[in-house]
């Protein structure tokens, strides 16, 4: 009758400390060789990759191997003069996912002035639909992720006034489910990644009152499995990226203490690659910058002393958010 719960076992020889130097090396190696296969074949998510890597470095107080001016020039080159949107890299099309990442990088380096800000605002505005939702680009795919990215982009530029915020909130509210979680579109199943987008959106616009916080926080804390790791949906395997989506949502809801920090930390540390650095989704897999930033950011939320404090709404260093004078809603 009773079946085994889906989970993994943390190997006893897995890393137990943060391998700071390895991670710096891992990220800085990642972009060094243009002809590296993984790097070369993933140009269609380059700017997002840069945001993951550069934010990870910033959180562990390390410097990128590239000079910052080059990075800023790169973002600049990715802005489409026509639409104002930012693409993953030259040769690809503008999209809100990369527009946000570009702005996050520039905001972190205090260089938003380097690009055509009005162009970005115009682009985000063009994505809003009559029902308040946002499409990812001009081709019309609708997703709650795009609502979150649009609003975060504008918030970093201090231009939330450019869109119909009431309509945008109305749409996000429609994506809320019977379990108080959020899915990609109205009536789509709740998923920790989308919950982060929904909660993050409401945190940005100061409307967390829309959520029954304890019902959602219960769903979120039930994502913790005996291994300590967090999964994204019921009956799914744990994965380091969910450590971030779940934990940051709990942090915004003021319920971080509803999961067990010690065992989660053990799980995240076990997902480090002891040879080349970086974090993986689960122990023993291949590391990548995506899981590296979310592993480090989650450890920061868990109070890790040697990692800079991360802001749960923006997934950026708290110091940057304070410098920008931003005050996302965080429940206590």
């Amino acid at each position, binding site marked *: *009758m009773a*079946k085994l719960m889906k989970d993994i076992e943390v190997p006893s020889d897995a890393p137990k400390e943060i391998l700071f130097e390895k991670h710096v090396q891992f990220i800085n190696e990642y972009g060094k060789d243009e002809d590296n296969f993984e790097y070369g074949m993933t140009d269609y998510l380059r700017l997002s990759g840069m945001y993951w890597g550069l934010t990870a470095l910033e959180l562990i107080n390390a410097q990128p191997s590239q000079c910052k001016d080059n990075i800023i020039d790169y973002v600049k080159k990715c802005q489409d003069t026509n639409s104002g949107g930012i693409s993953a890299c030259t040769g690809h099309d503008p999209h809100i996912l990369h527009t946000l990442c570009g702005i996050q990088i520039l905001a972190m380096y205090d260089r938003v002035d380097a690009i055509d800000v009005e162009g970005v605002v115009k682009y985000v505005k063009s994505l809003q639909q009559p029902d308040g939702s946002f499409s990812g680009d001009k081709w019309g795919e609708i997703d709650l992720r795009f609502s979150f990215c649009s609003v975060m982009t504008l918030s970093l530029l201090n231009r939330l006034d450019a869109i119909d915020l009431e309509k945008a909130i109305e749409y996000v509210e429609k994506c809320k489910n019977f379990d108080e979680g959020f899915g990609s579109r109205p*009536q*789509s199943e709740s998923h920790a990644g989308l919950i982060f987008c929904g909660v993050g959106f409401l945190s940005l616009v100061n409307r967390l009152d829309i959520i029954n916080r304890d019902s959602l926080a219960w769903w979120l804390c039930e994502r913790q499995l005996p291994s300590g790791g967090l999964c994204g949906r019921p*009956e799914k395997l744990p994965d380091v990226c969910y450590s971030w989506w779940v934990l940051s949502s709990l942090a915004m809801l003021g319920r971080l203490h509803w999961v*067990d920090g010690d065992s989660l930390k053990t799980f995240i540390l076990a997902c480090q690659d002891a040879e080349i650095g970086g974090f993986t989704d689960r122990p023993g897999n291949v590391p990548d910058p995506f899981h590296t930033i979310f592993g480090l950011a989650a450890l920061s939320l868990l109070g890790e002393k040697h990692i800079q404090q991360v802001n749960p709404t923006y997934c950026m260093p708290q110091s940057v958010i304070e410098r920008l004078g931003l005050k996302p809603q965080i429940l206590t």
Partner: protein
Amino acid sequence: MHGRLKVKTTEEQKAEKHREQQKKLVAYRMGMKKIALSRSSDSYDPESFAISAQLLCVNPDIYTLWNYRKEVALLQRNSQNDSESEEFINFLNREVDLTEQCLLSNPKSYGSWYHRYWILMIHPQPNWEKEFNLCTKYITYDDRNFHCWDYRRLLVNKIGITLPVELKFSTDRLNNNFSNYSSWHYRSTLRKLDENCIEEELNLVQSAVFTDPADSSAWFYLRWVLSHPILSIQKRQELLEAFEELQELEPDCKWILLAKCWLTGSLVLSDKEYIDRRIQFYSELTKLDKLRKGQYEDYLKLAEKKMKT
């Protein structure tokens, strides 16, 4: 890079792999260059178009290539005298086939799903019924793929499938497998809880949790049903007793204790006795389910505070 196991390889294997990868990388870059060139001239170049299909079959997440194919589809449409010409319809059908090929190897690619829908939206004779049957088939292959469920929702609205039909589909899915959160979720979108259906829903979810109390999925649905105020006090008391009995059989099942907490929580106003029991349940939970101790302690504090007042 989800779920990719790291494997040890010999130096020789490594060198061979490196050579192969470099070939692929060069081919990718050349293909992208050729496509970019063809795009900039706003014309349809069959060779570039074919390359983009090959690249997408390997990696359907290269979003720009789907955009390119949409541009070509629009060019094709504008070049036809008759917007319902066979040529154009065949072109669109091939696009639909391509997305199916991509989805078979990567069922979670956002780009493939959206392209399929977009193409069918400009199709003069879209076969939504066929889509719907395919969708039903794929849900039975992987009943947790939320893309597939989302697509189903789009189709249900397009075809105008009635609520009772979908409700039956959801009941069948659940009877096939109670342990499926996606099916429970889907059902919640079809049901507006009211006096006509709440007992039926309660019976369904109750039999699920009694069949396999260790499985988490149904408990979330149960909590939703229990949170509805129209459920009578008498029904709640009956349930509490049923869970007491179940717990004797499954003493280590935290879900049963949780359900007892929800029930006594909603009964608390009517009888002070329930607060004592609630405190007892939460104390047991802190020992039984240590990972979520923080949550139970918060509820304990609340209950103790209530008891003092």
